[in-house]
């Protein structure tokens, strides 16, 4: 597998449409990303950012991780899952059981969540990969719902009564912020390098036409499996951190479809099939969610739904996707241009 070298130049490449597309990557983009990440670490560690701002940001990082993984599956690989909450619920319960029942560190909880999610995703892949499109989407949702029902009746996890995370001492918002930031950076890097690799090329080919991709040598099963398992691991890690921040878990919340609704909303408003879409979408989603909480009951969902409808109708490529198209630029593009 050849990992592309980040070039120290601004690229202007002829896109497939024949026009000029400015590609923002290489050393300047890398430097900008490193600077932003460093600033976020420094501001977080030195207390420049208030605890409340860190709370906003850690939610953005976690939603960014979740939606980037959903985007990797749906936007780049064509596997539209409605059941990623399976791994959030498993990770949330792993964390809670490890800390509350076995009095272990939350790090052990994260690890157990990731391992269980890896095993479950490998097993589920055998069944789910026999389906495509709508059938795959519905099947993933059914799995999550089945787990929700199972956990609601499982005495070991106190049935539907829920469980409380018992980390001792309980980590501060700053600590969770740093963990979430680190996970987000790793997740974005993994998505970027995966898409830039030979595997990534195969994935997009598979999304556009699985049969044609297979006929030119793309191993469909292996490629899908890689993306599905990677996505499950990062989704589980983000879910574990989410529940460390929330402090308690219930089957209806952990395995609830609202997690996937959030991921889909973020990717749609940000821009499906773009690296920056989930980042922008997560920022907007968290701000919307927090600000709309002040409205009387029910309005949050109505307004979020209205925004999603407007974006789907008028900006089908999402905000960033539309801007990229109109202004002819691409941020950290995974596309291959003729000069590369």
């Amino acid at each position, binding site marked *: 597998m050849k990992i592309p070298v980040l070039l120290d130049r601004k690229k202007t490449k002829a896109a497939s449409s024949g026009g000029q597309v400015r590609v923002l990557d290489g050393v300047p983009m890398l430097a900008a990303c490193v600077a932003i990440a460093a600033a976020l670490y420094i501001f977080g560690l030195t207390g420049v950012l208030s605890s409340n*701002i860190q709370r906003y940001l850690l939610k953005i990082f976690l939603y960014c991780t979740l939606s980037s993984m959903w985007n990797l599956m749906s936007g780049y690989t064509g596997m539209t899952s409605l059941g990623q909450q399976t791994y959030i619920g498993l990770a949330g319960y792993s964390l809670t059981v490890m800390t509350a029942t076995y009095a272990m560190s939350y790090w052990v909880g994260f690890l157990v969540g990731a391992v269980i999610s890896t095993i479950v995703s490998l097993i589920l892949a055998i069944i789910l990969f026999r389906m495509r499109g709508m059938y795959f989407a519905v099947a993933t949702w059914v799995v999550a719902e089945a787990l929700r029902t199972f956990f609601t009746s499982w005495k070991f996890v106190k049935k539907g009564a829920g469980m409380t995370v018992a980390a001792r001492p309980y980590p501060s918002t700053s600590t969770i912020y740093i963990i979430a930031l680190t996970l987000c950076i790793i997740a974005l890097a993994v998505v970027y390098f995966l898409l830039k690799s030979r595997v990534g090329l195969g994935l997009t080919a598979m999304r556009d036409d699985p049969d044609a991709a297979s006929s030119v040598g793309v191993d469909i099963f292996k490629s899908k499996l890689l993306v599905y398992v990677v996505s499950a691991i990062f989704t589980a890690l983000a879910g574990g951190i989410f529940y460390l921040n929330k402090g308690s878990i219930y089957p*209806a919340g952990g395995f609830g479809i*609202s997690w996937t609704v959030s991921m889909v909303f973020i990717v749609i408003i940000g821009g499906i099939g773009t690296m920056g879409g989930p980042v922008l979408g997560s920022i907007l989603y968290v701000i919307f969610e927090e600000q709309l*909480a002040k409205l009387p009951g029910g309005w949050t969902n109505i307004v979020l739904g209205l925004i999603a409808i407007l974006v789907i109708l008028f900006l089908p490529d999402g905000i960033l996707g539309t801007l990229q198209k109109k202004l002819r630029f691409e941020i950290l593009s995974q596309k291959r241009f003729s000069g590369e």
Partner: protein
Amino acid sequence: MKKKGILALFLTAALCLGLLAGCAGQGGGKGAGKASSGDTIKIGYVNPTIGPLAGNGEGIDWLIKEIEGYVKSVGGIEVDGKKKNIEIIVYDSQSDTTICTEMAQKLCEEDKVDLIVAIQTPETVIPVSAQAERYGVPCVAIQAPVNAVAGAAEKYEWTYHAFWTIEKVYEQYKSLWTIAGYAPGSGAKIGIAFANDADGTAWYNIFTQKIVEDGYVLVDPGQYPSGTTDFTNIVNKFKAEKIDILAGTNIPPDFGNLFNQMIAAGVEVGCVTMGKCCLLEGDVAALGEKAEGILTEVWWAPTNPYKSALTGITCAELGEKYSKDNGGRAMPQPAGYGYAALELAVQAFINAGTTKKEAVRDALKKMDTTTIVGPIKYDKQMGGLTYCETVISGGQWQMVDGKLTLIIIDNSLYPEVPTTGKYVPGNATQR
């Protein structure tokens, strides 16, 4: 289409900018982290305004107006050498435990509340009190069975709870079964219906044990997920076993589905005792005439004999005022508890004389007052939870002037609570 696209992009950008501006306008900066809340004392309140628990959250705006108005009318509360008014910040939990947590965090982190109220069923009380514990914010917890809250965490350091225990509500139900003709030792068959949520599980554990101990025959079809719509298996079991009594606690949609399916299947019972969904006029009215005769526990009623030590208002005056301001609607029981929670919050600040969190917590710990729901003194312990037991009586929904009305028919546990009528067989007790 091109113009439309640009317009939509502009619209979305404007929306986002507006929201961003709103965000920037909040006290999210470093200064907001100070303990003091400025010119007002901030009280956080997470309320189920919509969703299956919405009936419990009814009347919140009226309660806020009443308590904020009272504090304003007495010129504020003296804390840290200055008179301050109170500001009650309410967020909607949408009856969702995940949103409860998010809103409680928002209250602690963003609004920097001085105290938080955790109220209305374990589904709200447990996640909200968990955040209060995490952020070290004094928490007035109320209106959720003590067992459910005590079982959710090993230790509570900032939360002080008030409500009844499941053991107590069982005793109340046993008394109602006896009044309906099914005394302990009678061998009557009791079919139980409990969802496997926090409330249902806490009740289930005690009821399954005590029903057998008291010489009844337990018909246990097992717990089911809250939100179940098909109760065929449970109804078939009840029919096959010929149950005499139906007992449980459920959210209104669950009980509505179960009860309708039981009636459709021809299951006839001599007594129905049901918690949670049969407390409120609105929820019972939705069931229609078949709800006549249902028995339930009563935690608060305008006929209760208590007078608020803080505002001086009696239960009767409060109930009358609520009805007058809300188009003649009877004051719901949870609204009575909402009033009491805010009374306790205000009283804690008066007693503490400061907004310093440790001092407010200590004031809660030493609380000895009478609220609209009765005397409150946190002198009992269950696991890691300090709590106060509140009164409970037995009620029945009876048709009065063509309207379903909750009549208190039993006060055996707390004789100071007056009864307002006697047991009358109704539509729900067809046998």
